[in-house]
């Protein structure tokens, strides 16, 4: 067995309450060192040792991702939490203690930054139909078809450009309410499962006291604007933990 590290906190007194446990149903434990606590569980060494073989076992990987997320969220509900990236594993608890010692400053900096704050996600999409407005009735000839097609593409481009401009404004407005913000790459259509193009994929670190304002702002922009907005959260502050920046 090896030690899977989910998250680090500094005022954790007991393991988070996660009904289903950690990865593979393993029991969660706290490993404390230097005023920090790591939330860990034992996992099968084989499974993680050769992820090249395992990474195509997608159902397994999805379950690991959900378990990881479940633990991080549970910790974050009541405490400042520094989430680790998926599948950070150590040979034993002593190695985890060493990491807590060695990276004490970095963990503390993250915990300071996220304390009392949550991550919120705002996505913006081109509104359905915005690009299709130009598509008229059935073309009478091949040339007419090509013309209509060209017009539709142009209208589509213009709709996307308009949506991007509006999304910039939404991002700026939400950022103004947030302590920090990050722009993630817009997700591909095949990922969102929506036919409309995503034009904003923002993450915002928001004081808990300002969360209602963010919600109200996104609702208001959504009602009055001409792009579709999606708000998700509160998330543990994954995007603000100084990960793969």
């Amino acid at each position: 067995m090896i030690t899977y590290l989910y998250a680090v906190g500094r005022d954790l007194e007991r393991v988070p309450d996660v009904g289903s446990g950690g990865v593979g149903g393993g029991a969660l434990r706290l490993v404390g060192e230097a005023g920090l606590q790591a939330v860990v569980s034992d996992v099968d060494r084989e499974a993680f040792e050769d992820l090249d073989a395992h990474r195509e076992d997608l159902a397994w990987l999805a379950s690991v991702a959900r378990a990881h997320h479940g633990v991080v969220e549970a910790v974050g509900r009541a405490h400042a939490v520094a989430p680790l990236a998926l599948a950070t594993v150590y040979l034993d608890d002593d190695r985890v203690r060493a990491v807590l010692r060695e990276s004490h400053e970095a963990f503390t900096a993250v915990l300071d930054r996220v304390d009392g704050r949550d991550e919120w996600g705002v996505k913006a999409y081109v509104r359905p139909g915005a690009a299709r407005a130009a598509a008229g009735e059935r073309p009478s000839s091949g040339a007419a078809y090509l013309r209509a097609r060209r017009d539709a593409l142009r209208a589509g481009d213009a709709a996307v450009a308009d949506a991007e401009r509006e999304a910039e404004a939404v991002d700026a407005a939400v950022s103004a309410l947030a302590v920090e913000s990050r722009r993630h790459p817009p997700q591909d259509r095949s990922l969102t499962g929506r036919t409309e193009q995503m034009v904003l994929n923002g993450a915002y670190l928001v004081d808990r006291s300002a969360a209602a304002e963010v919600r109200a702002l996104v609702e208001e922009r959504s009602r009055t604007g001409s792009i579709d907005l999606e708000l998700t959260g509160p998330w543990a502050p994954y995007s603000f933990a100084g990960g793969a920046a």
Partner: protein
Amino acid sequence: MNEPVRWTGSMPPTQGRQGGQGGQGGQAARAPGGTDLADILERVLDKGIVIAGDIQINLLDIELLTIKLRLVVASVDKAKEMGIDWWERDPTLSSGRGELEEENERLRERVAALEQAQVRRPARRRTKTERTPEPEEER
């Protein structure tokens, strides 16, 4: 702390917050099943503190991985009884699942494109043991 929320602009959740007690009014429910898996993966795979573990983890391109996972999840959620590899079997087994098939077709196309791109461009991250742990860089 706030109730988890996921809503889209076409369904303003205004009423949802007034009832308290998880009163999402049916308009702002967290997306069911695997719909939010893409969001979760985007965060747990690519964000969070990246620090060298003792065992090298070398995951696929994240977008590629996420789409592949979505294929599995869509299938698990909607066609559990057929097993997670149902789409690879005789297509007659999956008749009558037009919408899902269409989505999966789209996903498979995207996977193929990404895999081709990967041949030209080597895996881009998460070779953990080869990376200086970020916290140490900050010292």
